[in-house]
């Protein structure tokens, strides 16, 4: 897992990030407080399984605790490590998870129940379409479009150029639009 993880992005070139010392307790707590939700949601979007997403999040932060002393950008480092952990799991098992398990829960409001139903169906279709994308388009859509990271951060996490980010994003969105239109 370590070897796989270190392939990712600019973090592959930093041996200190791979075999570094423990991060300080306050830095660790800060990273957990600021980034654990994003790491979990990113893992959930890739794996579509809550239990596995929690496991990956724990593995990622454990690794940060044990080796993160020299990490400069914890957010991007954590996402890169989480992504590779997710890809390892997906490679090891060819299973598929029902998208309905992962549909976002809508907050209560005054809208019609039909609206909520339509939104859940749309989210479900969208998650299936994202899951059908190839890497790195899938990770890119989740990081850029779902979580709003900028292009440079995505490029660093995925180990691709800014131009490739634009190209992959364009292709991914075109494919998602087509898939959604076909499924309607």
């Amino acid at each position: 897992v370590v070897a796989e993880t270190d392939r990712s992005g600019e973090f592959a070139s930093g041996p200190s990030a791979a075999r570094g010392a423990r991060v300080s307790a306050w830095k660790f707590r800060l990273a957990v407080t600021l980034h654990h939700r994003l790491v979990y949601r990113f893992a959930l979007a890739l794996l579509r399984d809550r239990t596995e997403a929690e496991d990956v999040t724990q593995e990622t932060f454990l690794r940060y605790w044990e080796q993160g002393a020299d990490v400069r950008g914890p957010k991007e480092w954590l996402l890169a490590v989480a992504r590779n952990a997710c890809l390892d799991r997906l490679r090891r098992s060819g299973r598929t998870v029902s998208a309905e398990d992962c549909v976002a829960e809508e907050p209560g409001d005054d809208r019609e129940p039909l609206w909520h139903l339509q939104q859940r169906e749309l989210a479900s279709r969208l998650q299936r379409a994202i899951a059908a994308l190839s890497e790195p388009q899938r990770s890119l859509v989740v990081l850029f479009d779902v979580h709003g990271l900028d292009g440079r951060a995505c490029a660093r996490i995925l180990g691709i150029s800014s131009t490739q980010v634009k190209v992959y994003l364009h292709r991914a969105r075109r494919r998602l639009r087509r898939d959604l239109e076909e499924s309607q």
Partner: protein
Amino acid sequence: VSDIESQWAWSQVEAAADGTLSPAERPRMRDAMARDDALRKAVESAARLRRSLRGLRADPVPLSLGQRLLRIPRGARPAHGRRATAVALVAGLGLASATAIVAIALLAPAPQTREPTLEAQDRAVAEFAVAMTYLRHSVAIAENESTAAVRGALAADARAARRPRSEPSNGE
């Protein structure tokens, strides 16, 4: 001209959907969309996709996950190996026994030290993050001001150097 305009408009579908067109480009795009129904539908479809993707991030995060992650440092093994662990264990046991004996001897009540709750620690960390953000901004402002001051001083020096000097008269 119309073909060029149409090509430009189709190349900007995603920018229009993202709302990242410049103020100068927006009316141009609006005109193109008014002329081309397919283009308008494409922009609407891209905008719909963007809204839907943004909606996906509302996935709830298990409340216990953050607590479990914060416990990682407590549960992790020490980094210096088994021997050090054994030594630490023996030393710890010895220290605990000595403390217990002293405590019993003095019949003192158990110390009432209480660790701050995880919520309190989280609040402190969040406050620290805000403080660090302010600090970073202050540093950036101070840097800008000092850079401007240094540039001003250098420019003044340069002006002074360019100014023709009045040669001291030797009386000849």
